[in-house]
């Protein structure tokens, strides 16, 4: 017994975990510092777009990278939250913080319902079911009177945060978005590194084995699905306030594909990969906008390259080089 405890003391197990945690903390601090200074270097609206998509990709990655569940309908949660938030802010005149909360809650509820339907099947079946469910949301958004059909909900007021801070200035709003983003990704980080996250990773790695250990895996999957949908909703609701717009783009299935692309490019199952992936894809879309249809072609090529040669993604490759989880 003594020998075991002795080995415990020098066990590389905890040491590696602590080292990784320290590294992650350092990176998060670096991100926070960068975010604080970024609007002085870069266009704040562009930054806000990147942050919204980065949060969306991180939420998606929680499900795919850590839950092993490929949802092909995540646009449904982004879009629903975006519509609800826009409607609450514009039509009901709610302050932005409540509008975002409402939007996020709607996405959570939808995620719970869709999740309980989808987790009944696995793998490709799961992907197809999430896709089809999201498609229903798309048609609903197209036809429901309050979504404004093709026009979407436009001219959403940015309002005053807590009735005090005027958000109409881009830089002010930027800092709110940065805080939401950081809170969101830190929450995701905590979920990944929680007792729940441990079980989740076990289910991802080997579901039958997790069942044989006595875990009712479907419940875990439902929880992570709902969490992921909620955070995707947070991203969508924030986006609605930033762009003062909720539109069909957010619920269309190509959006579900885009978030997969972002996660894949950055590295699925890594903490920081989806952020990098989102930044890369959004930047690309922004600077290649004049190329028209070539953007889709380039996106397709990136997809193919990632799947064929580069499955670990940018951060995945770096993590491998450094031999550290990122």
């Amino acid at each position, binding site marked *: 017994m003594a020998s075991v405890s002795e080995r415990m003391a020098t066990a590389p197990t905890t040491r590696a975990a602590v080292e990784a945690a320290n590294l992650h903390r350092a990176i998060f601090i670096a991100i926070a510092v960068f975010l604080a200074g970024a609007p002085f270097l870069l266009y704040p609206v562009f930054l806000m777009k990147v942050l919204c998509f980065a949060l969306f990709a991180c939420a998606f990655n929680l499900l795919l990278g850590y839950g092993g569940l490929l949802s092909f309908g995540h646009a449904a949660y982004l879009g629903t939250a975006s519509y609800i938030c826009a409607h609450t802010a514009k039509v009901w005149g709610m302050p932005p913080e409540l509008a975002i909360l409402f939007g996020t809650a709607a996405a959570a509820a939808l995620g719970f319902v869709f999740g309980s339907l989808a987790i009944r099947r696995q793998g490709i079946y799961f992907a197809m079911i999430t896709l089809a469910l999201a498609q229903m949301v798309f048609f609903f958004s197209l*036809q429901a009177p309050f979504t404004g059909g093709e026009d979407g909900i436009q001219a959403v007021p940015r309002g005053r945060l807590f009735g005090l801070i005027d958000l109409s200035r881009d830089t002010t709003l930027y800092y709110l978005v940065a805080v939401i983003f950081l809170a969101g990704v830190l929450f995701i980080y905590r979920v990944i590194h929680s007792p729940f996250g441990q079980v989740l990773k076990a289910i991802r790695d080997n579901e039958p084995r997790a069942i044989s250990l006595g875990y009712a895996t479907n419940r875990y999957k439902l929880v992570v699905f709902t969490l992921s949908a909620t955070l995707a909703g947070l991203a969508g609701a924030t986006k609605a306030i930033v762009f003062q717009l909720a539109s069909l783009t957010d619920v269309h299935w190509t959006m579900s594909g885009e978030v997969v692309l972002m996660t894949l490019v950055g590295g699925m199952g890594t903490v920081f990969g989806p952020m990098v992936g989102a930044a890369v894809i959004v930047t690309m879309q922004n600077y290649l906008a004049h190329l*028209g249809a070539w953007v889709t072609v380039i996106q397709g090529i990136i997809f193919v390259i990632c799947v064929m040669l580069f499955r670990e993604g940018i951060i995945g490759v770096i993590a491998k080089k450094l031999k550290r989880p990122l």
Partner: protein
Amino acid sequence: MKTGRMLLATALVALFAGGAQAQVSVKLGVLNDRSGLYADLSGEGSVIAARMAAEDFKAKEKGINVEIISADHQNKPDIGSNIARQWYDQDGVDVILDVPTSSVALAINQITREKNKIFINSGAAASDLTGKQCSPNTIHWTYDTWALANGTGSAMVKTGGDTWFFLTADYAFGHALERDTIAVVEKSGGKVLGTVRHPFPGSDFSSFLLQAQSSGAKVIGLANAGGDTINSIKQAAEFGITQAGQNLAGLLVFITDVNALGLQTAQGLVLTESFYWDLNDETRAFAKRFAEKSGGKMPTMVQAGVYAGTLHYLKAVEALKDKDSAKVMAKMKETPTEDPLFGKGEVRADGRKIHDMYLFEVKKPEESKGPWDFYKLVATIPAAEAFRPLDQGECPLVKG
């Protein structure tokens, strides 16, 4: 910062050029669909049209430095508004041109107002741009749903098409087009026998066409757009609907759609446009030069609108030697418009550009003399009647 540097550079250029004239630099952004459904009717052609306007105006010689940039809004309001913000905030764009797709146009309308720049829309159909959502910074140049509904609706009733059945795309745009047309039809003494709302986008319309057929209406109004309209017309021909005596009225059909359908299928279709390349010598001359630059394609009314709008804007800038948005807008509204493509006209207080509209019928294949020879002129709708009266648009700018 960027703008500042650019202004400095152009000022230096002017200094060295030793020009006696005051130099003004303007940056125009053509924002439209370059990959989707409206790429053919706007797209690169609109950029060509804007460039031609700058050349024809001899802007350089008149001391105006014109830079034209372009981007693809993919028909998505979020992408469009993102580009617009960046153009205005970062890239020093003064005017945004074209912008087909109503949803995107409405978004740009709002941002332009917020940033106090100028938006000259040519591509979008939404009559709200000069109605409830009108803005002191927006001009709507080429057409709108009201004008299309009015042109096609009243003219069809006059020629005997007095019972209608609507095939409506089930979303805001379709509903608006249907509502506007029904109003016109009923005002002209026609009757609406029924409507069917089809999912958007759809591919098979046969079921709805059969319902339209069994209604016995003389006219089937297509309150949809793009691929939906094309498929409806194609399948109407297949089901022998036009042969059986019913007429199709395309409420939003462009010459590029007719080109895609082919005359065999599109023949007999009645539609309203504000420009056709084969109207007169001036339009033909323009079209010939345009076609040389665009690989043989004739200009659409949307592209013509971009040309004319750019021209009118440059005139105002030249007159003022200034590009201040408010001053330029005022100048553009007080100066009557005149250009080779739309003739004489005016820009109304609500931002609506007024000119004649034309009702065309698509030729039979044997009547056509060659590519792009598609239309027979049925009627000219004089400018005074072509657009929604100023007092009916609920535009807040008008009351004051």
